């Protein structure tokens, strides 16, 4: 299969030339980008005219819950893949909190097989750090690595035993796996359902303090420093976490961090209506935390943007705030929110946004063939219309679940086409 994208305004990340001057044609053969030049022609190629649009490396989401195997009523690898490509994501990392847990090569293989059958987006199963994510025995990480894992996490659970975290980092380094930490000390989180502070006090909801996150960030920075081994911090939500990571990076400690669109687009005030789609873990924080996250994105403290796409059925969410499971869907709104909240107000340039959504996540997990539009690299490409405004509507979500607090929002910046492995997998 041969594709030829004509008149492409290419925007790469800052390490790959940023916004390329002029309009280029991109020739794609056998899943790879083979030529980038002007005036290309190919008789066999399917031609895509990208005039007036912007062409960027496909987005990479390090944090997605696909729910399969186990909770196919919430999402499947098929529906999650469709949501991903609609949002411009050509690689997504599937969290291991499935049933069964992704903690053996067999389950890893199952996810790969299902994803291949679906054939829309690259799905990378993330293995668990401990068996059944219980914080006990380490998983057989060498086997997970051979099965194709690039990273491990007990996401949803924090590895609380610092000694075990040390073993996990030492072992994962040998296996060539990145350790990704969910940072919430459950003793401090207690049964908190929203950010602890004046708003939780007012609403009578149990508070989940930022210090539950920051004590783990601080601890793991120390482990990363001591062991000279990378740790990736998932879904950072607190201003103080950004400070800690900034300080650590200045000292050359190998830590990386991701944030989610909801943590820069919303504050805890969104909880006031008790809409359970505003309940997530970690919770929405204050305006000061949002400002710090934006500053962290801008100065590079925060490496990348992921979604924590967490589908839940209407039935699961249609309960009181305490009883509702945490999480919101994010794949289909991420790009629009990045444009609205970060690029439009000048927090990030478009090039930096590409860094955060493509180049950096590829670098963090070592996907050397992805995250950039360049000759010889994988043909994972997203074509967007930066000017198009659209309204988030419940009925338009292709995810099986609809739990989004952004329904009704007007976003600017729309995914027009998604190309994955040289194949058009989504067209608006």
């Amino acid at each position: 299969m041969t594709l030829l994208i004509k008149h492409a305004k290419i925007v790469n990340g800052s390490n790959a030339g940023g916004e390329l001057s002029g309009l280029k044609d991109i020739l794609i053969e056998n899943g790879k980008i083979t030529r980038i030049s002007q005036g290309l022609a190919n008789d066999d190629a399917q031609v895509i005219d990208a005039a007036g649009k912007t062409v960027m490396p496909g987005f990479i989401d390090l944090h997605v819950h696909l729910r399969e195997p186990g909770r196919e009523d919430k999402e499947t690898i098929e529906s999650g893949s469709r949501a991903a490509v609609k949002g411009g994501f050509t690689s997504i990392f599937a969290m291991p909190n499935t049933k069964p847990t992704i903690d053996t090569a067999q389950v890893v293989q199952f996810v790969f097989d299902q994803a291949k059958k679906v054939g829309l987006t690259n799905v990378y199963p993330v293995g668990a750090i401990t068996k059944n994510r219980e914080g006990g025995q380490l998983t057989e990480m060498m086997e997970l690595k051979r099965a194709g894992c690039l990273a491990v996490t007990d996401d949803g659970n924090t590895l609380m035993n610092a000694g075990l975290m040390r073993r996990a980092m030492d072992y994962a380094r040998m296996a060539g796996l990145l350790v990704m930490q969910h940072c919430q000390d459950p003793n401090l989180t207690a049964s908190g359902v929203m950010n602890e502070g004046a708003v939780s006090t007012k609403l009578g909801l149990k508070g989940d303090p930022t210090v539950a996150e920051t004590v783990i960030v601080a601890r793991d920075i120390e482990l990363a420093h001591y062991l000279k081994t990378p740790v990736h911090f998932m879904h950072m939500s607190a201003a103080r976490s950004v400070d800690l990571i900034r300080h650590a990076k200045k000292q050359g400690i190998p830590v990386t961090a991701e944030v989610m669109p909801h943590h820069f687009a919303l504050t805890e005030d969104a909880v006031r209506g008790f809409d359970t789609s505003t309940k997530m873990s970690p919770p929405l924080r204050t305006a000061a935390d949002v400002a710090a996250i934006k500053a962290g994105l801008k100065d590079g403290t925060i490496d990348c943007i992921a979604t924590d796409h967490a589908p839940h059925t209407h039935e699961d969410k249609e309960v009181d705030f305490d009883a509702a499971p945490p999480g919101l869907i994010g794949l289909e709104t991420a790009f629009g929110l990045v444009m609205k909240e970060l690029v439009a107000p000048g927090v990030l340039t478009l090039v930096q946004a590409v860094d955060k959504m493509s180049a950096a996540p590829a670098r963090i997990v070592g996907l050397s063939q992805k995250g950039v539009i360049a000759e010889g690299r994988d043909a994972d490409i997203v074509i967007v219309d930066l000017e198009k405004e659209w309204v988030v509507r419940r009925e338009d979500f292709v995810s099986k679940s609809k739990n989004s607090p952004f329904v009704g929002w007007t976003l600017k910046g729309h995914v027009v086409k998604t190309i994955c492995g040289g194949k058009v997998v989504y067209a608006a």
Partner: protein
Amino acid sequence: MTMAQWTHKHLLDLDDVSRDEIELIIETARSFKEVSSREVKKVPALRGKTVVLLFFEPSTRTRVSFELAAKRLSADTLSIAANVSSVTKGETVLDTALNIEAMNVDAMVVRHQASGVPQILAKGTKTVIINAGDGCRAHPTQALLDVFTMVDKIGPLDGKKVTIIGDILHSRVARSNIGALITMGAHVTVCGPGTLIPLGMEQYGVEVTTSIDRALDGADVVMALRMQKERQQELYLPSMTEYIKEFCITSERLKKAKPHALVMHPGPMNRGVEIAANVADGAQSVILEQVTNGIAVRMAVLYLLLSRKTE
């Protein structure tokens, strides 16, 4: 303010209830209080209306109070306790409410252990929702009956010092009282162990202290809150003995308050824990009057909400 100016459809909390409106409720309650002292304790004000008491959390006092209030206004009442309803079969709160609504009821009086449930029901149904206590968030009729009792005893609350002592963190009574009392012009002080005072309380215009002496000093009203034994197991308190030693309202401590300061408690009481028995039963105690006034205030609330003219 007159009844005709009453605009609220629901009573979910007291956040947007003005001073005029609270005074209207008090006035209305005053006239209904007289009904309860008659030999025939009934007026036909809400004849033909159906009030459902939907209690997802066990309660005797509040449920009985609402039920009597509705009955004395001639409304038909039906009381549903969560443990005998379909809730245990996995039906959602909203489904339960929608089913009851489908039977053409006029108001639902709701109590739930989770904060925000009355809001969810007000949004998801068309029925009048009256909050009878949700989680740790709000208990508006309790605050209204407390304000009614205070005003009845000591007159306008402007500049009066009201002290609330105990487990502020878990108390919807404290939260609703704080809002209503500030609206009525009172100075509110909250006092309790450091572990049981929620973060950010000062932002709502109250004085926060862990010193009971300071809290009681010159108080016009002293309100004790129930201290549950579970707080010790939940590690909020080292022991009940220490709580009693530090925070129990004894007659000795009460001397720091104004000579005729009112002593109040929303019930149910743990005598000898948050309040000494002789204080609870003492001359300054208005605890049983709170209970009596509760019916009048709930009659007023039901009446105002259910007689509201809608186009």
